[in-house]
Structure formats: C-alpha cells, structure tokens
C-alpha cells in the first residue's frame, strides 16, 4: 500500500531528512527518492513540504547547500549536514526511538489485554 498523504508527525520529516543526509550530501530529489525506497514505498515525501523544510533547516543552520554535479552529469543543489545538524539529528533520533518504543509497547499491551 502506497501511503501518499501520510501525515508525518511534526518534526519527523526533519528527522528523516537529517538522518538521510547523515550518510552523505544529496539533492532534494535524491532525498525524497531515498526515503521512498527505504520505507519500501510506504512513505512518499510531498515536494510541497520538502523544500520549505530544507530552506527552514538551512536558515536554522542545521544543513548547508552547494551547487554540484550528479552522476548523470547534471547540475543540482546538494545539501549536507552541519556539525549542529548532526548533533540535532542524533538527539532527535534518540527521542523518536524512545517515543515510538513507548507507543508500540502501549499499543501491543492493549492489543494483548483485549
């Protein structure tokens, strides 16, 4: 099932983008594509929210951008993590894991109890 309008919890998109850039610089399309693939087609990032998120995080100093060339020899804007962005990503990931574990635990207990 392709979840197109999956409503990401606020901040989750940022976390996904940051972690995605953690493995190396990438352009907007590449980021969207990668998340789509890794989620096994479950997550589809809206372009309308991806770019504002990228610009906002650039304003906040979490990522920085530079024009570069893709493998196919095409000009694209590459985003990469700043030092600040890296530490924010780690902290966010931590709290996300704790939250999702807790939510899963609760849901699973309720399921079994029922």
């Amino acid at each position, binding site marked *: 099932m392709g979840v197109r309008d999956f409503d990401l919890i606020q901040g989750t998109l940022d976390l996904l983008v940051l972690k995605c850039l953690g493995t190396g610089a990438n*352009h*907007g*399309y590449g980021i*969207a*594509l990668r998340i789509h693939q890794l989620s096994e087609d479950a997550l589809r990032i*809206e*372009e*309308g929210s991806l*770019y*504002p998120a990228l*610009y*906002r995080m650039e*304003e906040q*100093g979490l990522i920085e951008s530079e024009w570069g060339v893709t493998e196919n020899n*095409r*000009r*694209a*804007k590459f985003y990469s993590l*700043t*030092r600040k962005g890296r530490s924010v990503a780690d902290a966010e990931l931590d709290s996300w894991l704790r939250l999702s574990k807790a939510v899963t635990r609760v849901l699973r207990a309720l399921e079994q109890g029922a």
Partner: protein
Amino acid sequence: MPLRSPRFLRRIIAVFRWNVQDADMDQEMAFHIDAMTREYVRAGMSEADAARAARKRFGNVRRHKEAGHDVRTAHLDQLLGDLKSGVRQLVHARGFASVALITLALGIGVNAAVFAVVKSVLLDALPYPDADRLVRISGGAATQAGTLGPLSAGTVSDIGERQRSFTSLAAFTALPLEATYGSESGPQVTTITWVEPQFFDTLGVAARLGRTFRQDDAINGLVPLSGGLAAQETGGRVVLSHRAWTRLFASDPNVIGRDARVNSVTRTIIGVLPDGFVAPMGQVDFFLAFDRAPVVANPITARRSQWLGLIGRLKPGISQDAGAREVERIWSELVREYAADNGSLTMRAMPLRTSMVGDTRAPLLVLMASASLVLLITCANLAASLLSRALSRKKEFAVRAALGAGTSRLVRQLLTESTVLAAIGGVAGMLLAIVALDRISDLAKGALPVYAEPSLDWGAILATSALALCTGVLFGLAPALSVSRSETQRTLRDESRGSSEGRHSRRLRGTLVAAQLALCVSLLVGAGLLTRSLWAMTGASLGFEPANVLTGIVTLSPRNYRDPQLWLQFRQQFEERIRALPGVESVATATSLPTAVRQRMGVSPEGTPATEAQPFVLSTVVSDDYFRTLRIPLQQGRTFGAQDRPDSPRVVVVSEGMARRFWPNGNAIGSRLRLGPDLDSPLVEVVGIVGDVRNDRARRDAEPMAYATTRQIPVPIITFMVRTKGDPLAVVKPIERELAGLDRGLPLQQVMTLPARLGDGLTGRRLPVLLMTAFGMLALLLATVGVYSLFASMTASREREFGVRMALGSRPGAIAALVLRQGIGWIAGGLVMGAFGIVIVARLVRDLLYQVSPFDPMTVAVSIAILVTCATLALLIPVRRATRVDAAVALRAQ
C-alpha cells in the same frame, strides 16, 4: 568547516538577493521534475506522458517557491511587523510619544551642543605640534593676579640665560597692535604683532608658503615708549597669517616677495602661515620680527618696562611642573637681585593651553555640568514615562502571554518600540543640536579662546542617545519581564478586579520625579546666582556715565606723522571739528577707553629711596574734557587746561583711591611724584583728584589710577569719546567726513557706542548666565511635565478606587486631599534631595559669583518658590480630575 559570515548578515544579504534566490529555486525544482520524468520514462511511459505526470506529481511550482521565500524571510516579516506595531503604538499613544520625544530631543540636543563647545576649548588639540610641551610665562603687577601680565625685556633675557628646561624661548609683544594696511582700495585696519625670530620654530609651525623668520630678519630698534607701546617702524619683512593672505591678498600663490604697506612702511612678504594656525596672542594679520638686545642694553627700558609675552618649548622628558618650578626659582633670584625693579611684580609659568583657555574654563565646566543635569532629568523623565506606559500595558502583555507569546517575543517588541522612539528622538535631537550650537557659537563669539572651533561630535550624540535610551528601556522592560507565564493568570485576575498600581512601582516612579525636582532646583539656584552676579556687575556704578557716548579710534601712521607736535596738532583739530558738529555736547580723546586701560606705571612719591620697589598704578593720558565728557566727578583741585603746556611743569590728576593710598593724610594736591621706570625723569605734580573708575568690571574695588594730559604727552593713537544730545550713532557719518577732511588716508576704527563696547567686555560673563538660565527653564519644563504625567497616570489607574470611595460616601474634598498629600510628599522629598544639589552647584559657580553669596537666601527661596508653584500647578490638573470621578461610571467601566 568553511568560514561563513554571521547568520544575521546572511539574512540581510538574502533579502537583497531575492532574484538570485528565486532563480536558484527555479533551477533546483526544474532538476527535480526532470529527474522524476526520467524515472517515469525508465518505468515505460512515453516522454510526453512522463513529463506531464511528473509536473502533476510535483505540484504548483510557484506555490512551493512562495513557501520557500516565506521560510527565508520569516524573521524579516517579524521585524517589519514589530516596527509597524511600534510606530502604531506610538501614534496611538500620542501623549506619551510626544512627551518622550520632546524629552529625548531636548536632552540630546542640548548636551551635544554644549559638549561641542566644551570639547573645542578643553579637549581639542592646540594648533601646534607637541603642544603639551609648550609653556607660557607671564608676569605683571602683583595686583593683576590671574591675568597674563607682561614681562620686561631684561627679565626675558635673564630667564634665557639661567634656564635648563627649555629647548627654546621666544618673546612677543604681549598685546597685538592695530595697524593700517594700505591696500589699493583704501586703508584697512589690521592687527600686527612683533615676535622674536625663533617664535614660529618654538611653536613648531612651518610656513605654508615661503618661510618664517630667521635671526637676520630681526630689526633692532623696537622700543617701548611710555604712554603706549610703539616702535621704530622699520621692520622690513613680514609673515602673513592665513587669514590675511586670503582676506588681503586673495590667496595669491605668488605672494612671496610682494610688497605690503603696513603703517605706511613698505615691507616684503617672506612667508604665509598654514590655515588653522592661531597665535597664542590671538588673530594677527602681519607678524614682524624684532631684536631684544638693544632694549636690554638701555638701562631705562631693560627692567622697568613690562611689555613682552614669553613662550617656551620644554626639552623632552621635562614635565610642565618641573619647568614651572625652575621658572619660579629663577624669579625668586631675580626679585632678590633686582629688588627695586621686580619687587612689586610677579611671574609664573603655566601650560600654554591653560593660558589660552584662560577664564573660559570655569564657565564652560559649569555649562557642561548644567547640560549633564538636563540629561539626567531627561533620563529620569524618560524612565518614568516608559515605566508608566509599560505598567498601563501590563494587561495587554498578560493577554498576549496567555495567548502564547514568549517573554523573548514581548521583550523584542518593546525593544523595537524603544528603538523607533530613539531613532526619531535622536534625529530631532541632532537637528536641535545643530540649531543650538549655532546660537551658542554666536553668543560665545569673543568669549571663547581663539583656537576654539566648535563642531558637533557624532560620537557624543550617539553616546548621549544611547544613555538616555538604555535608562528608558531598562525601566520600560522591567514590567514586561515580570509578566512571565506563571504570573499571567494573576495579572489578568488582578486587573479585572480593578486594584491599583503596586506600591513598589509607584514608589519607584515617585522617586524618579522627586529626583527630577531635585536636579531642577539645583539648576535654578545656579542660574539665579549667576543672574544676580551679572546684575550686580552691570548695575554697579563704574564711576562714569557711559550712556550717549560714541567711541572710536584713529591711529596716526608713523610715516606721515613723525613729529609728536603733529600728533598734538591733529588731535586738537580733530576735537574742534567734532565739537562743532550739531548734536555733540562734548568730546574727549585719550590713549584708551575707560575700563580698557592696560598701561601700568611704577609710582615713586617724592622722597622715596630709589632702591625701593615701585608700586604700580594704572595710567592713561587724557584730554581736557575727558572728565566732563564721561562725567567723572572732580573731587578736589582742577582738571587739565590751557595752562598745561608741553614746556610747563608736568602735572597729573589722580583717582580718589590713588590719593588715599599714597597720601593718606589728605595732602595729595600739590604733592609730587615720579611716574614710570626712569628714575631721573622730572617730578610731576598732582593738581586734582577725581572719582574712582573701575577698570576691571569683574572686580568690586577700583584700582588706583593716574591721568596725564595729552597737552604734555602726545600719543599717536587717538581714542575719542563723544557725548551726544541724541542718538550717538547719528554722528558717525559726520565724524567720518571730518576725519576725511583732515586726512584721507586714515580709517575710523572700532566705532561703537560706549555701552555696547562695555557690554562686549562682559560676553564671557553673560554666556554662562544665559545658557544656565535656559537650562534651568528647560529643567523646569521637564520636571513639571514629569510631575504631571506621574500623577495623571496615578489618578487614572485609581479612578475605580476613587469611584468606590465616592460610592461609599467619600467627599471630593477628601479625595483631593488624598492625592495632594501624596504629591506634596514627593515634592518635599525632591526639595530635600535638592539641598545636596544646591550645595554642589554653589561650589561649582562660586568662582563666577560677584557680590552674591553662594547660598544667597533670596535666590534659593525664589528658585524653590518657582519650582513648587509649577509642580503644584501640574499636580492640580490630575487632582481636579480625581474629584470629578463619577462613581457609577467608574465602577461600570469594567
């Protein structure tokens, strides 16, 4: 990590790079769509279908871009929003805004203007290199303490031989002389000074064109004559000041080597001084060089005639103090060795700057202090009004905090508002400063040292604005900060229940107002003391009647009037012609005007041993009608007349004070004495005693004065005084015609009425009085506004309380008493604090006072009365309002 500019800078740049940013996003999104298209093609779609699908999938490019822009300029929008709301708030609160703006503008403007003047005099560098090492050495009679009296040529030579502290010393004629310059368009009055050749080297000033003097430029023959300084006018080479070069020679670049006729002698121009150079003795047009040696060689002129000023440059490493100590030591030797010559004289050394600042220092410091008081009042006033404004907005802040605005957001908004206020107030203040400086410079013209060129100091303006603002913001911010989230609920509840302002903040505001009153009363007392001094100075009799007297000067050129007999002749003809004019009551001539006598002569009553030091008296040479024209009363004996011929025994008329001092037994008439340095000179007889004339207006006692007659001592400089029946200025044209009838080449100089001339001499005294009074008024205005705004907002915030009281049966009188009691308490507190201020101000202005005690009860009482009256009036408006509260309306208002 690459070096990046600070984020806020990038943000600002980003705004201006909108187009670049826009293109950037276009490209970025085009790439995205393109990449997707190829993905679809790979999945098997046709090229056209793939492109369409990709575009559809990506969505509205323009909307995405707009969202991007919004993200990037969010901070800017917020700033603009704050600015807008700041301006809106100020426009909305017009009363508050205008009070704050006027306060700011006045405080900043006044301070900037006064600081510009003070800085130009006390802080700006003198126009000489290494000016800290320059020293002025002055002398004069012991009675002349505090003025830059002249030295004798012998003393100058002695200092030169005995000193070890100076690399060079240079003497100059202590007072600039007037001379006529014969230009093509007619004679012009100019100023000349004789200097020793090393004068400019000592100051460290090089010529802009040509050169300054060398030793062989000096001519020997400059001789001080009794009855005024005069010279054998043979100096053949002159150096021009920059002013003379532009004014008289139209900045001719080839002026070197040209001829200049000064005092009818043709001289050669050898140099032009740089722009901005001002000689220590004042503005001078022509400098001439003289040689001291012949003067020292003559025993009569060597040590008994004081006419020279002296400057020196200290050797490196020698302090001003050490130099002064050495000069002092040399002087004590000279007093011992030449007791008869130097016994009644003094000598002292001081930094050249001190000598040039002169007696403007004390008034300027008083002015600066007064301006600072105005600034303090400004700060207090601004603080109080911002505080009361913030208090009245407490509820607004609470509501906003409740709706989710963070403390930092509120603080930022307040800061923006204050900055808007400061920017407008600062600009207004600057404009005011420009106008004020113009006025002050006008007023101070002639009272400031010659080198002073007041100009606005932007640093000072910024610092003043920042200070005023910081005070204000600190007080305005406090209430906003206190509305933190935890308190929001209470504030909201509090306000709606209608309680009054907290005791704590009310006390703070009261203290601010009391402080303003205290500063204000100090300023008023200072202004009052100075005003009374000036009244005493101008009101006290000078010993003559200046009203309806016209004065002017004619200088006979030495070339055309060589023979003293010609001087006498010219003088008599000139007097006769003026006397015959209609409207002229009487006419007199003299070497100088009353109150402007500069010549002092040693006096030895007959029988005094020659070894005894001569006491000095003022001396002037006057014509027969001098006493009648100026209405100086004859006390005893006679004045001068036809019987006093050049060949008859010399006579003098003495002042009452001189008669008392030298002949205490009342036998002055008929006594004989010697005047001047020459001990072999003939004895002169006292033939009359006239009333005292105060030569120095700032001193209450009259210095002893001796009058000789123009019939026996001819002088080539003719100062005339004409008493008229009507307007003195009406006879100026006729006098000019008569002068031209006698000699076309002589200009009429310094024509003025005597009262105007006397007023000129008080410019330096009038300046601090005028300005301090203006500052006092300003302070009064600010403090009154302060009292009003405090109580207006206080009663407004208590309206509900008053309403409740009225509803419970309180009478309007009781409520008025309640507010009044509080107001009078703060006013009294202000006066108590003011007592300290008065003590400080009295100490500050003590040196400028004349016949007024620093704690003059009258002045203090009047100042307090004025302040209390204004404060009470300001208080009555809110009181009236408080008593008119309609209980029903006030209670319903919530």
